[in-house]
């Protein structure tokens, strides 16, 4: 009986997810048609959301807090742009290669996996700075501090222009939904169980045969791959790259704020957090306080942590449970 109810609940959750995804694909472009500014804000928020989902996957499953995701973002963006411009690769395979390059670059972080807490976070931060310097100095490949201009835009496929705002929105939406789905499957797999177990009992998990270092490395590679893909998307969306932009600390800071605000222990929390935080910042805080509007962003994050440290989605889920009954697990 319990199994039947669980299965019915799972079917309801899948149906709800499909309806929400379909609505996102159709309703958002329809509602914002003609408003290119709003559409570009939504695309930017999803770009941050993509990194936030990847960052939260590493934090939530790998138990590692990273201050250096800007490195993976920058590597993915440069790799994709260079492959397209210098080797003539088509854009979508080049984006995939951008993700793979970011993942390969993460190999250099492996020695830091033995570090815990702030030590790992700071080691990765240093690593991001090293890559920014390499991108600045390796002029023959990256164009140096001047960067790379005129990066090819997304192509027209089957008569649809993916370089348009709607096309870019569909691409980044597909990426972040795919990331969320991957996070869901990993978390609900045996590997996810072991990863959750590792957080506060690493010695206990090793004693039962779990290769904790390998699992953490896998989460690091996956997170770096996702972030690199988002970086590659961004390179072809804005058509310009320079080291201080591609490796900017903002690509680390904003996703962390978004993930913690939305609920980094949940799968969709970081995505919801990114959309809420970025749109509030750009549409409301910036209008109220054109200079220094980030102060309000910080105050909002502080207020959220004080009100509910779990973040926005767990707070909503808690409210819903109190008033309506249980929600689907792992929302």
């Amino acid at each position, binding site marked *: 009986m319990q199994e039947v109810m669980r299965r019915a609940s799972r079917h309801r959750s899948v149906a709800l997810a499909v309806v929400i995804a379909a609505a996102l694909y159709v309703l958002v472009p329809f509602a914002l048609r003609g408003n290119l500014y709003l559409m570009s804000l939504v695309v930017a928020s999803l770009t941050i959301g993509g990194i936030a989902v990847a960052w939260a996957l590493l934090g939530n499953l790998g138990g590692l807090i990273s201050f250096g995701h800007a490195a993976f973002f920058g590597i993915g963006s440069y790799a994709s742009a260079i492959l397209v411009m210098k080797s003539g690769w088509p854009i979508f395979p080049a984006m995939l290669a951008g993700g793979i390059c970011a993942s390969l670059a993460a190999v250099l972080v492996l020695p830091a996996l033995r570090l815990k807490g702030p030590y790992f976070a700071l080691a990765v931060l240093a690593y991001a700075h090293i890559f920014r310097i390499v991108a600045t100095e390796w002029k023959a490949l990256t164009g140096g501090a001047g960067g790379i201009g005129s990066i090819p835009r997304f192509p027209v496929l089957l008569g649809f222009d993916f370089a348009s705002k709607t096309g870019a929105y569909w691409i980044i939406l597909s990426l972040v939904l795919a990331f969320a789905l991957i996070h869901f499957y990993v978390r609900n797999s*045996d590997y996810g*169980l*072991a990863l959750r177990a590792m957080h506060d009992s690493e010695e206990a998990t090793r004693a*039962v045969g779990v*290769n904790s270092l390998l699992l953490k490395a896998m989460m690091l590679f996956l997170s770096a791959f996702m972030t690199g893909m988002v970086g590659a998307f961004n390179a072809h969306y804005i058509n310009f790259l320079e080291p201080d932009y591609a490796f900017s600390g903002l690509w680390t800071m904003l996703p962390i704020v978004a993930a913690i605000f939305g609920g980094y222990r949940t799968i969709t929390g970081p995505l919801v957090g990114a959309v809420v935080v970025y749109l509030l910042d750009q549409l409301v805080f910036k209008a109220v306080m054109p200079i220094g509007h980030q102060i309000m962003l910080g105050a909002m994050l502080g207020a959220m942590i004080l009100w509910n440290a779990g973040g926005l989605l767990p707070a909503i889920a808690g409210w819903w449970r109190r008033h309506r009954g249980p929600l689907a697990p792992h929302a």
Partner: protein
Amino acid sequence: MLEIANIGVRFGGLRVLDDVSLQVGEGEIVGLVGPNGAGKTTLFNVISGTVPHQAGTLNFGGSRLDAMPAYGRARCGIGRAFQIPQPMHALTVAENVHVAQRFGAGRVDRRAQAEILDLVGLTDKAQRDAATALSLTELKALEVAKALAISPRILLLDEVLAGLEAHGKRMFTQLLAEVHARYRIAILIIEHDIETISALCPRVAVLNFGKLIADGAPAAVFRDPAVVASYTGVPADA
């Protein structure tokens, strides 16, 4: 099966294990006793791979363990129950056993998992949170269940009876006897209770100040003047 040869461990200037050699055969139950600080848990840490040794060799079932990481030793069949229970806090009792079987034994067998939970008396608590729902006795039972789930060839039990009241100790001793009878696996158990260890183990080894000072049948070992001296502090020739 388990061959510990001339193992030496130093923590800085402190010699914790000094030239310790011990063999445990297939299906054998061996008690490991000694005063506090004798090096018993360190020897378990060396066998299970959480503390490196600077001298000697470790062999298990014909394989060298010396350079093998802790998770590899578990996969080879070395199961361990910790002195202070270390449940995987984020998981339920059933998930604890599932993870141990999936990664330690490399397979998933729900029937075997249910059998283990039944054996250790945790079937009713299977879906409960491991961190908050279990008493000390149940946490210790979960330690044994996790160790059994990896399909071990040897169980290292570190003071699993410590802290239990008399009834719990009797129950646990019966459980260990049943585990041994059912699975025919070797057991190396650290325990301070001489009566329990004598009843459970046909063979006892004694460590004192990092040295193995006796190894044999309990009756003979506990009469050994060096063993008596290690516990009483009175030299054998005094």
